[in-house]
Structures are given as structure tokens and as C-alpha cells.
């Protein structure tokens, strides 16, 4: 009976420490999963928002190590901030493209009102490097007569 009692006491002393270790392990595991998911989301958003932006490394970071719980939380929060910025950039670009598409529609409806205006395919979010522009038919004669039309340049032959 005495032995059982001692065992019980020893077990109850160890329990809180054991629990806190399990809690920290669970927290670290959750943070790892969150960071991996955020990184995937950030990569996907970055590639969509900046398909042609290739950043060169700036400086060497510290060596590889196991990070503390606090560092993992900071990293998770940083990634959330970066993801928010990338999504904001994506949204801003989409709004700009939408405005450009509306302007192109207006150009096509009434070229004379949008003389000399140029909108590139890139501004419209379309591949290639062609440019939509309002130009006079038959050069100077068209300019004098007010014969305006919208032209799409063929763009660079090397662009894909």
C-alpha cells in the first residue's frame, strides 16, 4: 500500500511537466503545419502576382537551427504579413487591369475621343507585348479628316 501511495505521488508530481512538454510539442507541430501552409500560399500568390519578378538573395541569414516557440510564432506572423502584402499587390494589379480593360472598351467604341492613347497587352494582363493604340487612318489625311481607329501592334516576335 505504501509503495502504491509513493508511486501515485511521484506520478502526480511529474504530470504537469509532462503535460507542458506535450502542449509545447503540439504547439510547435501546429506552428510547423501553419508555416508550411502559409509558405505554399505565399509561393502561389507571389507567382501569380509577380510572374516575372526574380529577386536575387540579399544577404546570408543565420545558420540552421531549431527555433524557439516564440521565433516560430514570429515567423508565422511575418508570413501572414507577407501573404497579405502579396494579396494586396495582386488586388491592386487586378484593379489596374480592370481599369485598362474598361478604357480599351471605351477606345474601341469611340476612337476619336481617345486620340494617341496607348494600352499595352501587359497592362491588360494578356500575354505578349502588343500595344493597342488610337491612330489616324491614312496618316495626315485621316488626322485632318478625323478618321481615327484602334490598332493592335503585333508586338515583339520573341515574346512568348
Amino acid at each position: 500500500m505504501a509503495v502504491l501511495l509513493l508511486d501515485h505521488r511521484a506520478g502526480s508530481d511529474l504530470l504537469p511537466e509532462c503535460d507542458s512538454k506535450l502542449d509545447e510539442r503540439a504547439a510547435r507541430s501546429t506552428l510547423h503545419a501553419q508555416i508550411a501552409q502559409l509558405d505554399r500560399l505565399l509561393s502561389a500568390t507571389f507567382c501569380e502576382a509577380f510572374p516575372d519578378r526574380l529577386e536575387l538573395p540579399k544577404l546570408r541569414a543565420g545558420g540552421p537551427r531549431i527555433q524557439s516557440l516564440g521565433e516560430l510564432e514570429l515567423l508565422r506572423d511575418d508570413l501572414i504579413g507577407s501573404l497579405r502584402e502579396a494579396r494586396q499587390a495582386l488586388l491592386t494589379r487586378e484593379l489596374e487591369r480592370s481599369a485598362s480593360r474598361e478604357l480599351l472598351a471605351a477606345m474601341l467604341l469611340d476612337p476619336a475621343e481617345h486620340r494617341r492613347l496607348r494600352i499595352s497587352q501587359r497592362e491588360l494582363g494578356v500575354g505578349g507585348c502588343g500595344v493597342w493604340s488610337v491612330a489616324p487612318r491614312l496618316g495626315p489625311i485621316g488626322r485632318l479628316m478625323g478618321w481615327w481607329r484602334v490598332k493592335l501592334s503585333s508586338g515583339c516576335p520573341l515574346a512568348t
Partner: protein
Amino acid sequence: MGDEIGIEFPGLRADWLSCECTEHRSDQGVGERLAQLASRLKGRQAVELRQQQVPAAYRSFFRLIGVDPDQQPTPIEQAVLGRLLSGGNQPQDRISDGLLLALLETSVPVIAFDAGLVSPPIAIRSAERGERLSGRAVSPGSLLLADTEQPLCQLFQRPEPPLAAGRRSERLLLVAVVVAGVSAIASDEALTIAAAAISGS
């Protein structure tokens, strides 16, 4: 692998394979394969690389070990950046070419040690207080590749002489660091490609 690291990073391990290297000059066939791979790589692919499964796994792992992959790119991203900056994959020597070929084909980084100076099994562990690597102190807790006797190099860093395989090495130990999300097949393929390219078989 240290217990602490095994618990912290499930799936992290080092795989290794030994091979012979009797000829150190670049192999023409390997050089041609590197050139073909270089011709397929463009800026767009370099940006989109981070979305592919294996590069994404290394990228996530870099973040977990406190290394920002945008500041210190993962090995595959570094190799692709190097190709874009230099305009091609320039052949160097048989060992470097074999390691680069394996990396570009599989995205799994492989490093080469002089097998005579390294005693497998290879493990990943934290540096202890006062531990030194190539004569320099290593900060405690840094993640290292180590054999049964000594630390070999920091994780994802190139080994330094004399442990690194060089012109006098006839037998090599190729080591691939595999992280969670990278299949055993990818690691085996990387080691096999590197071994075949280096040994000329």
C-alpha cells in the same frame, strides 16, 4: 539522428551512397545533359519553381530552421539562379557536374565527401557547446551533418576540405538531406544519378 531533431522535424534524414571516382575530368555526356537542362530553364520557371512539390518542401523546411529562403535560397533555387546569371550550366569537374545534374534532375541536394575520411552512418544533430567545424567554432544548437566520430558540415552547406570530395578522392560518400514531403524515390534517384555521373557507369 538526434531524438530532439527527429521529434521536431519528422521525415528529416540523411541518405547516403558510396561510389568510385577514377576520372576527375568533366564527362562530355554529363556536360551535354547539363546544357540540355540549362536550355529548358528560363526566368519564369525559376519563379515558379517554388510551387513544385520538392522545392516547396525544402523551402518550407528552410523557414522552419530559421533560414529565410529569399535571403539564402534552397540548393535547387540557388542552382537555377546560378544558371540564369551565368547563362548556362558550365561544366567544372566530374564531381561538381554529377552533383549539379542530380540536383537539377530531382531538386534534391547531394553533397560529396571523401569516403576515406568519413565513417557512416551519417546523422543530423545539433552542435554541442564548444564543438568546432574545420577549425572554427560552431554556435551551439546549429544543425549539423555528422558521422560517428565528428561533425562534417552545417546542414545545407558545402563541406570543406579535407572532408569534401576533391581531385584526390577515389572513393566518395554521397549524402542527400531529405526533408518531410520529399519521397524516398526522389532521394534514391538523386543519389543514383550523382553516383552514375561521377563513376561514369
